[in-house]
Structures are given as structure tokens and as C-alpha cells.
């Protein structure tokens, strides 16, 4: 399987970032790829999908081929300092200083840098730690605004830091993020006006401004409609005929609006969105992710034909 190593999942709050991250992890693990799921906003929701209370702050096995880790912001600084400073006592001394910790918390961009640096280390831990290497690293990332902020950080910091080891780390991170062979940013949205607008805007920034490799957008919870085209027309023509018709009009209009928005998104970004069906209830365990994983496969270079736009979820052009 060819495809990116690093998947950064983002989207508006509640759009289904965690669900998509879990479904992707589930696909890769099924293909027997060593996959690391990273919970960057550690609320345990990703871990719960795999039957765990929460992921630990060091990568650990969740099940065959699948590993999980939670990002603990308070440990990032420690990890970074002890990795770059050659002498343990020096690192300890520095970390013991409350002043240094305050500095780490206050300086703008530091927390962003530390998170990206940590992720980059999981993607490529280097020669001496090559046994800890993963085929795929999937990051359940922050919401779109924060993610854009995060992805802008290396550039902004490069402007501020003209040289030194930090500069070199930043260059490495920047190279990883902008490499289409290694990285894929996935934007998840619901078929709702605000989410679709925000997604189009995120694409404009990610592709047009930051030149980062972006996957087709994922539209989650696309409503289905039990009525065929001619049935819809007939129902809408009949006007107000009581609650049974009102219920029918509700599903038809909801589906209609979603179609309009998805077409608009496709026009705006020039990419065909991947549509995920609306499940009766939100997935609470991995097996419930199956229909989503199936729908997501076209997003990946797995050599399978794209079948996403068949069946009741096809959006007519």
C-alpha cells in the first residue's frame, strides 16, 4: 500500500473527527499495518471507541497492529528537552527550574512546536529507535481553527528563529508537513452551511496559502432519504397534508439541502468529497465503524475501486 504515513484529522467541533480517525485506524490495522492513533485533544473519546477508558501518555498496544497514545501537553516540554540536551543532569536541572517552565508556557508558538515535534518523532523516530516505527500515524487533531493555527506555527516560528537546533527542527517539521508522500490532512465536516463554508475556507488556507497536502474532504452524517426522485416531487407538490407528509417533507428537504451544500463544496474546492452515511446512533465501539470504514477506503490509495458514490448516498451532479 502506498499512501501517506501521517494523517492529520481536523474539522469543526462535533463533525466527527474522532470517528474518522478511528475508522482510518481500523482500516489500516485490518491491512496489518502498524498504526498509531494519537489523541491530541485528550478527552478519551477515541480510546473509548476501542474499549479503553483513555490512552496512556506513551504509545501502547490497543489490539493487533493498533497502538494508542494521548498527548499530554505537560509532558511535551520534558520529552523535548531530554531528547535534545545530551546530558541528563542538564535537562533535569533545566526542567526543575520553575522559571523555565513558565517560559515554555508563555512563549507564543512553543506549545504548537512541541506538539508537532512530538508527532514528527512518532512518524520518524530515527535510526536508533527504528523498532518503534509505525506505518501510519493518525492524529485526531484539534478543531479547524486551532489546526490551521498549529500548521501555521512552523512558518511563523521560522521567521522568528533564524538559526540553531530549533531552526533545524522546524525545517524538518515543515518538510514533513508539506510532503505529499508522507502527510495527508483530512478535513471532516457535516453537511451544514457553517461547516461547509469553514471547510472551503480551510482548503483555501491549507492549499493556497500553506501549500500543504490535503485529502478530499469527508462529509460525515450525510442524511439519506427513503424516497426516489419522482416520489419526492410528488410529495412536495401535494403541499400540506398533515404530519405524515410533514415528516416526509422534512427528510426530503434535509437531504436536498445536504446535496446543495455538498455540490457547492465540490465546486469551491474542485475536489470530490467522500460521503459518510448517517448512522442511526453514533458509533460507540469499533465494529460500529464498519460502514464508515468502507466508505472511507476511497480516500486511501488501497488499490480498490472507488465505490463511495453508489447506492443511496450518491449525490446527483
Amino acid at each position, binding site marked *: 500500500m502506498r499512501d501517506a504515513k501521517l494523517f492529520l484529522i481536523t474539522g469543526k467541533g462535533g463533525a466527527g473527527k474522532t470517528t474518522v480517525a478511528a475508522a482510518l485506524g481500523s482500516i489500516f490495522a485490518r491491512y496489518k499495518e502498524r498504526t498509531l492513533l494519537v489523541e491530541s485533544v485528550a478527552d478519551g473519546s477515541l480510546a473509548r471507541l476501542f474499549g479503553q477508558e483513555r490512552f496512556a501518555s506513551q504509545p501502547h498496544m490497543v489490539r493487533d497492529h493498533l497502538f494508542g497514545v494521548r498527548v499530554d501537553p505537560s509532558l511535551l516540554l520534558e520529552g523535548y528537552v531530554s531528547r535534545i540536551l545530551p546530558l541528563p543532569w542538564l535537562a533535569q536541572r533545566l526542567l526543575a527550574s520553575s522559571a523555565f517552565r513558565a517560559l515554555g508556557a508563555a512563549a507564543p508558538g512553543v506549545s504548537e512546536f512541541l506538539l508537532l515535534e512530538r508527532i514528527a518523532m512518532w512518524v520518524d523516530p530515527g535510526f536508533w529507535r527504528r523498532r518503534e516505527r509505525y506505518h501510519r500515524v493518525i492524529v485526531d487533531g484539534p478543531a479547524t481553527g486551532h489546526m490551521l493555527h498549529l500548521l501555521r506555527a512552523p512558518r511563523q516560528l521560522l521567521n522568528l528563529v533564524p538559526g540553531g537546533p530549533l531552526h533545524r527542527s522546524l525545517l524538518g517539521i515543515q518538510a514533513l508537513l508539506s510532503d505529499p508522500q508522507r502527510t495527508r490532512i483530512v478535513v471532516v465536516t457535516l453537511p451544514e452551511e457553517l*461547516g461547509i463554508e469553514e471547510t472551503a475556507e480551510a482548503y483555501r488556507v491549507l492549499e493556497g496559502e500553506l501549500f500543504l497536502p490535503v485529502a478530499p474532504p469527508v462529509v460525515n452524517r450525510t442524511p439519506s432519504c427513503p424516497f426516489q426522485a419522482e416520489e419526492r416531487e410528488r410529495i412536495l407538490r401535494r403541499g400540506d397534508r398533515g*404530519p405524515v407528509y410533514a415528516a416526509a417533507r422534512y427528510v426530503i428537504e434535509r437531504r436536498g439541502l445536504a446535496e446543495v451544500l455538498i455540490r457547492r463544496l465540490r465546486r469551491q474546492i474542485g475536489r470530490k468529497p467522500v460521503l459518510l452515511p448517517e448512522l442511526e446512533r453514533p458509533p460507540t465501539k469499533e465494529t460500529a465503524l464498519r460502514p464508515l470504514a468502507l466508505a472511507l477506503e476511497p480516500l486511501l490509495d488501497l488499490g480498490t475501486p472507488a465505490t463511495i458514490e453508489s447506492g443511496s448516498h450518491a449525490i446527483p451532479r
Partner: protein
Amino acid sequence: MPSRDSFVQSTLSPVGIGAILEHKIVLCLGCGGVGKTTIAAALAVAAAERGKRAAVLTVDPARRLKTALGLQAMDHRVHSVALGAGLSMDALMLDTKRMFDTLVERFAATPEAAARIFHNRIYQELSNELAGSSEYMAMEKLHELVSTGRYDTIVLDTPPSAHVADLLAAPNRLLTLLASRAVKILKAPTVLLDEARSAAAKVSLQVLIKALERLTGLPLLRDLADFVSGFEHMLDGFARRARETQELVRSRDTAFVLVTTPHPQTMRSTYLFCQELRELGCEPSGVIANQVLGFDESEDTENKADPLFDKLWANYERLRALGRQQARSLRALCNDTHLPLLAYTPALARPPGSVRDLRHIASQLAGTKPGCT
């Protein structure tokens, strides 16, 4: 438009929004995508319909709602929205960057000092994205609106923060940051040396500082020091404002409303929001449920002959079952949080896009017939 299912109505038995609208400030809280902006706007409409001078401060409205409220992109001015029948309310949108600039201008000792901050690279690149700055500025804007004394009721649509604390503690957080030891260190990294008690420690710290400088590059430290010392002179002004804002929000004049949808994940977040709010010492007034499915009872005999009837009926039954499930879950949420359900709005296939839509939602919230005041 779906109307009300008697089971949904009796399960939820909303207590009404009358008491909420008697507050000077109504803060709408909830996670992203629940329709906070819509509910906030509709609450302001409901207040205006009760003869109050009302305003809604929105953060990031959808385009159609923005148009309905007469707001343009990046426009921070107050707009008067005509609601018909001689009623009106004010609407405005938060512009974080501009609000920050305004505050810097106000508190800087001299115009030159303000200019120095505006020209600082760190301010330029980060003032818009500084930790919690949009939350902070929302609070500041609220303070500004209250100070005008022009309104009886101000409804605030809050930024989509992951945590309530981000919003309520935002003003304090920036201040704590600026007043912290970090400030001193940033201004002169050699302050670290004061910590050293022995000569050996001093030497090791000197090595560290050198390493730090090499690591970060000196210009970064210089820019930071400049930024931080520029702000330091305004700390008093900022601190006073932050205190006033905190008092305002924590006074009896402020009501907290939790906005939720009946989606299970959303309700989970709402529950956590409520807990966090209480940990911060704020008691929410109740829950407003947005987008609840509910269709009238029907025995529908006249449409039985329709060839589509079976399909129509199956769809109707499915949505009714879903609506009842939603009502039960919402009731459980209210029981778990010991909060009253203030009001609910029926699920709409389309989001509101006009003043008429908003008035309709306002009437649903108020439990009156559409168009009645």
C-alpha cells in the same frame, strides 16, 4: 414545518424562558454545532418582543443568519435589525483583532507605546490567535456593551471553546501569564541566575541560558521581551477591566443557558459543560434544546389510498420514534444535571435565513404562537 408531538411536549415539559429574559446578560454556552448563534439571536428577538432593549453579540454566524441580522463580514459595528410591528433589536459581531487593538490603544500610556506593540512581530502574528484571545475579547466586548447602558438584555453567543473555563477565565489567564515570572525571564533571561544558590549551580545555569539562546535564536527572545515589556505597562488597565468583567459575569444580572441538540455526543458534552460551569462557581439557569424532532399525532385516514402511503407512514413512524428517543434522552440530561429544560425548538430541515425564521424560533422558545407578541 414539524409541529409538536404531545409525548415529546409532555416529556420535556419546558418551563419557559421568561425568567431568563429578565437578566441583563444572557450567556449561551454549548459545544460547537448546536446552534448557539441561532438560539442567541432568537432569545434577543424574544426579549425585544417583550419590549426590552435587546442586543445579540455573535461570534461567527452562518452566512444566511448573518444576512438576516444585517451583518457583513468583518464588520464590528452595531446593526439595528427591524423585526416588524415596530420592534427592533441590535446585532453585532465580534472582531477579535480589532477589539484587541482597541484595548491596546486605550491602555497604552502613549500613542507611541501602542504603536510599538502594533509593530511587534509577535503581536502581529499572534494577537489574533493568542491563547484564548477570542474568548477574552468576547468578554471585553460584553463589558463595553454593558457600559453603554443602552440595553436591558444582552445575549452573548460564545466562541466554540472546548471548555467553559476558557471563556470565563480567559481575561485572567492572559493576565496571569503577563504577570508571571516568565515575564521577568523573558525581559532578562539572566533572572534565572537568581535561582542559583551555589556557584556550581550558577555556572550550570549560565550554560543553560547560553543553550537556550542558541536554541531559540536571540531575535525571538528579543521580540518576546519587547512584546512582554510593552504589555507590562498596560497590565493595570487590563487587570482592572478583567476584574470588572469577572464581576459582571458572576453577578446576579447574568444568566447562563446551556444550548444542546438531542444528539448523544452533544448531550455528553453539555453534561460536562454543566459540571465545569459549576466547578467555576456558576450555576446555569437551564437547558435549551435545539432541533428536537416532533410531529403531531396522526391517524391519517384520508391519505390511506395514496400508493406511497406505506413508505410515508414508515418514515413518519421512524422519525416519531427518533423524536421520542430524543425527548427521553434530553429529560435524562436534565435530571442528571438537576436543571430545568427552559425551552426547545423543533428540528428544521433548513437553518434560519431570515428575520421571519428567527421570530418563528423565538415564538417556539417563548411557547407562543408564531407572530404573537
